[in-house]
């Protein structure tokens, strides 16, 4: 038995490599070029020399953006190749190179780039160190991408841990904030806890099938094809635990306990990134696992997932109504949105998969903008995030109020916004698969959810004589750019949705066995 060197083809993970390399470059550049932020300088107290609105360390975000650009370019390159030769696996079956992973990777790169832009301004204003922030965002996007294309449960687990650990740190990034520390602690403990369930799930799947590989020879797909259904109880239990582990990452009820705290305590750009990226990565793994690999077992896992979907939609919407803090409210709303995406997962048809991808892409673009607005209005330690702090926003910043209106309407699913189209697509897929009652529950949950979005709008437009302190937006060109982009995407995708949906439909072919 001689050692056989593995065949190495890097095209499948080229975007991840680009991001990881950029992260290392950012750390190096951070150490050797430019000034350190005040918190790390001895002569603290003085303003940073020459810090304009963009700071004098603009090379770090620029480098990060170049990294994301390279990642998108490499992903598009892979798409061309997939189009020409069909989906394949690489690295001894560890990586799937297919349309699905490419679509998710490009979307994730966009979320990451927006987070960098937003984070730069946020950090410069608070005089926090930037290099590590950008590096962690780059690393976590790389982890999320790896998760989307992993074709082996070992890789899925390592990718999940990579982006989770980066997120634990990013949540507590503003170390002086006590609620941020608390949020990081809670997110970490519950995250590590749920990871062990995911691990036990993998161990049981391995015990049942003798492999952790999804597609390869002797992998789970071929095992399912050759084994009689009566012998699968261990595999079903393992799959259930995998759903628990991933359900935590996408913030599904009853694994949602961390969400409000982590969302509230984290710096708002990070919160937006978590809501957009973490959900997309988690659902990418869920879609590949449930709708493709475990498709033959759908009668076993579907009841569990339907239960999760229904409870998630209802609990998320109802608890959001009683929130007083806008970040917690958006956290519960993100839980409800996870439930809406689950309705597409249980459809197990191509329309469901493309619908879920479209939903997550548009939701991510909207929610990043919403948290950007929270960031510019929240003040240095984000203390002004209560719903009542938005009182009189229309009078103070009419344009910002208008954009927030648009984003809230999109989250509520009102026509001519992307949120409406997205809901239509996922509900349509579920109806097509015969789960009309789940869609009815979803519609009721949306109606409940509309309440709290409207509550923000009412407060915002109210002309009240007793405004204690007018909302004050502190924003530079980067925040304005991100908010504008998000609003434009929300509106444009609400009117001309077909190009993105066609792309998402192209993304429904997977690497096969």
């Amino acid at each position: 038995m001689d050692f056989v060197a593995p065949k190495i083809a890097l095209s499948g993970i080229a975007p991840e490599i680009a991001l990881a390399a950029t992260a290392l470059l950012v750390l190096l550049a951070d150490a050797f070029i430019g000034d350190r932020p005040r918190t790390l300088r001895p002569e603290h107290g003085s303003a940073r020399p020459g810090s304009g609105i963009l700071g004098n360390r603009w090379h770090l975000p620029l480098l990060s953006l170049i990294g994301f650009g390279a990642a998108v370019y490499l992903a598009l390159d892979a798409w061309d190749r997939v189009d020409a030769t069909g989906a394949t696996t690489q690295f001894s079956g560890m990586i799937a190179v297919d349309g699905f992973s490419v679509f998710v990777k490009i979307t994730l790169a966009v979320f990451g780039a927006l987070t960098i832009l937003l984070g730069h301004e946020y950090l410069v204003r608070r005089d926090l160190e930037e290099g590590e922030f950008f590096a962690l965002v780059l690393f976590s996007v790389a982890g999320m991408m790896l998760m989307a294309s992993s074709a082996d449960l070992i890789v899925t687990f390592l990718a999940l841990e990579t982006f989770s650990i980066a997120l634990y740190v990013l949540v507590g990034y503003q170390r002086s904030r006590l609620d941020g520390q608390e949020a990081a602690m809670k997110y970490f403990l519950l995250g590590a806890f749920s990871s062990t369930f995911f691990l036990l799930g993998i161990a049981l799947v391995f015990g049942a099938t003798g492999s952790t590989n999804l597609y390869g020879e002797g992998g789970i797909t071929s095992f399912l094809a050759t084994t009689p259904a009566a012998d699968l109880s261990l595999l079903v239990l393992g799959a259930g635990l995998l759903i628990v582990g991933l359900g935590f990452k996408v913030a599904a009820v009853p694994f949602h306990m961390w969400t409000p705290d982590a969302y509230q305590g984290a710096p708002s750009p990070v919160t937006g990134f978590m809501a957009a990226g973490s959900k997309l990565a988690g659902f990418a793994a869920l879609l590949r696992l449930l709708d493709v690999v475990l498709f033959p077992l759908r009668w076993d896992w579907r009841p569990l997932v339907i239960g999760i979907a229904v409870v998630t939609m209802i609990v998320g919407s109802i608890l959001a109504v009683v929130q007083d803090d806008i970040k917690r409210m958006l956290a519960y709303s993100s839980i409800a949105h996870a439930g809406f995406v689950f309705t597409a997962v249980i459809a197990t048809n191509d329309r469901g998969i493309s619908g879920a991808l479209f939903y997550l892409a548009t939701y991510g673009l909207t929610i990043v903008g919403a948290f950007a607005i929270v960031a510019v209005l929240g003040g240095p330690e984000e203390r002004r995030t209560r719903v009542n702090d938005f009182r009189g926003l229309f009078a103070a910043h009419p344009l910002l109020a208008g954009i927030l209106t648009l984003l809230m309407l999109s989250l509520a699913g009102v026509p001519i916004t992307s949120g409406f189209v997205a809901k239509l697509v996922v509900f349509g897929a579920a109806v097509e698969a015969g789960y009309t009652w789940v869609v009815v529950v979803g519609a009721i949950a949306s109606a409940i959810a509309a309440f709290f979005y409207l509550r923000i709008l009412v407060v915002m437009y109210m002309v009240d004589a007793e405004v204690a302190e007018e909302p004050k937006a502190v924003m530079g060109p980067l925040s304005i750019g991100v908010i504008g982009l998000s609003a434009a995407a929300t509106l444009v995708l609400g009117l001309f949705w077909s190009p993105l949906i066609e792309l998402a439909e192209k993304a429904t072919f997977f690497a096969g066995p």
Partner: protein
Amino acid sequence: MPITYLLILSSMLFSIGVYGVLARQNAVLILLSIELMLNAVNINLVAFSAMFGAEGVAGQVFALFIIAVAAAEVGVGLAIVILIFRNRSNVDVDEMSLMKW
């Protein structure tokens, strides 16, 4: 040796870990319980790996990765513990109540 005993040991340790996470209040003790759960998963993997023989190396490789990941997780977790301890001189999870439902 029948694999059943190993699986029973593993599930018992895992459940003890789950209980520890839910019942303990000190963050360090919760983290220790999570480590016990990871160990329980490792028993499972090694047992299955032995069961599958030559094809089952994957189980042992995975156990190796779990140990590496556990090290990384413990590092980050203890860093968060120290960060919080500096500010409030205890790490009881139940006393963390700046944020409420």
